[in-house]
């Protein structure tokens, strides 16, 4: 009983760690980008300061907005927190991760996105509706690609539970799988599209012609905006952790001793820092696509996921 209680506590601690580290990752990403673009970088703590500043401000809500507009930030943030509870960060086999599988995770993402799009539509501004329609277009194409990539993993581990699947990959040791190469590429492409990073969307500008995420949250201010910003930072970190822990799971704690957990924390921080450097590099190198080319990009991601699944079934499964 005592043991179980500790596991639950650890799971809560891990989720809290997720929530606390997410703005740090965003700050680090911004810093890398600034270095690459010869700009002076803001401090790593800047995202925290921004969030704090926003929570102190009074939120302004339009008269036309309904209750949906006001509760949406809370729903989106809680959906992301729940999603964070499902993804193993520093240890596998925690009770929250064992309770929900990867399809639930995709469900949380879809749920948050649904409310974000509703909130964008709710105030009735031109930009809000435009952003919502663009977001739904992109996500309807990105979701199958993501599921395809994740099914490759789950078929390899023959479980849809993320925690067990990671433990399975870890247990096999060093195995080169062609299917994982494809799934990795597919998941990276989907992550870039879903988090609104540069070839698809640019989160740093408010350019009317191209904005997607920003268009939906244009009407938000104060603590509502803070919650939504935090949720999108969490989403970025969730995708980063998914990529890092599924495909490079080494270092994650398998036993719940203090030493292993410490190593797990160090490992994931290192992996995320590296991943952020790669992302910053790609954002500096590539230009933003036209909106109507996004479907080509996402169909390529889907194709990669499909090829990953095919390589798993054909190349790797026993005959």
């Amino acid at each position: 009983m005592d043991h179980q209680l500790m596991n639950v506590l650890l799971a809560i601690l891990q989720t809290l760690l997720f929530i606390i580290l997410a703005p740090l990752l965003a700050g680090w990403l911004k810093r890398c980008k600034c270095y690459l673009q010869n700009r002076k970088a803001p401090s790593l703590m800047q995202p925290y300061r921004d969030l704090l500043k926003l929570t102190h401000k009074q939120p302004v809500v339009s008269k036309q907005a309904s209750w949906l507009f006001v509760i949406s930030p809370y729903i989106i943030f809680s959906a992301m927190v729940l999603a964070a509870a499902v993804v193993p960060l520093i240890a596998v086999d925690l009770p929250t991760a064992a309770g929900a599988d990867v399809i639930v995770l995709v469900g949380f993402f879809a749920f948050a996105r649904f409310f974000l799009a509703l909130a964008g539509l709710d105030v009735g501004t031109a930009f809000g509706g435009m952003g919502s329609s663009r977001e739904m277009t992109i996500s309807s194409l990105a979701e199958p690609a993501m599921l395809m990539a994740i099914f490759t993993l789950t078929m390899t581990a023959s479980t849809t539970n993320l925690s067990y699947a990671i433990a399975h990959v870890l247990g096999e040791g060093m195995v080169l799988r062609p299917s994982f190469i494809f799934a990795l590429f597919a998941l990276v492409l989907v992550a870039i599209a879903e988090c609104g990073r540069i070839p698809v969307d640019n989160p740093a500008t408010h350019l009317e012609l191209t904005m997607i995420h920003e268009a939906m949250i244009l009407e938000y201010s104060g603590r509502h905006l803070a919650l939504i910003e935090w949720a999108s930072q969490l989403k970025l970190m969730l995708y980063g952790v998914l990529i890092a822990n599924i495909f490079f799971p080494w270092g994650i704690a398998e036993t719940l001793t203090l030493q292993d957990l410490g190593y797990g924390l160090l490992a994931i921080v290192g992996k995320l820092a590296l991943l952020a450097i790669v992302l910053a590099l790609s954002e500096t190198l590539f230009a933003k696509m036209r909106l109507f080319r996004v479907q080509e990009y996402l169909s390529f991601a889907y194709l990669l996921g499909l090829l990953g699944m095919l390589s798993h079934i054909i190349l790797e499964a026993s005959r």
Partner: protein
Amino acid sequence: MNIEQLDLYTQIILSLAGLIMLTSFIMLGQGRLLRLVFVFALQGLLLVLATALAAYSFSNHHLYISAAITLVLKVLFIPWMLRGHILKLNMHRDVEALNNKTTIMLGGASLVIFSYYVLHPILADSTIVLLNALALSLAVVLLGMLLMISHRQAIAHVVGFMSIENGLFFAAIVSTRGMPMVVELGVAFDVLVAAVLFGIFFLHISNSIDTLDVDRLNRLSEEDE
């Protein structure tokens, strides 16, 4: 037999086979000629790695020579030559609008399934690596053909042709542990001569119709008159 029970060599060969197929797909969707040539060089590099690995693992030393020939020809010389043609004919700024890219890509995916379907009964009692690598090389050959069908620029056709040759070469490496040296030298020189001849053809086509878009060749027929 599952993949985790195979040795590291087999795993690397399978992964390289997968990556070679991936480069074929990237070429299929590429509208810019310089990038197309770059990806082609990348495919050649993967082929060189596979050959060198096969040479090391079978301790078959003449395969090192074919790896070196492939490196010089398909990674350095032919891409360099094609690049020169593209720059000279001032085609590096053109983006070829592929009609219906998604359909072409999914067609490519079905070609992969098709090549497995075809090869599965033939090689039912061979080793897993042989079956997979052969199926993937057949897929690379078919994807090269699809590249030639779907693109309109003559340079893309040449790249498709060369990648068909890449697929055949890979099949030879994994299935028979390398062709005899004489055959390989002959093929290498054939490819070299083909590349030079293509260069001459490019000049002639672009001199006479002022573009390398092969759809425009139809205008020479009498239907237009």
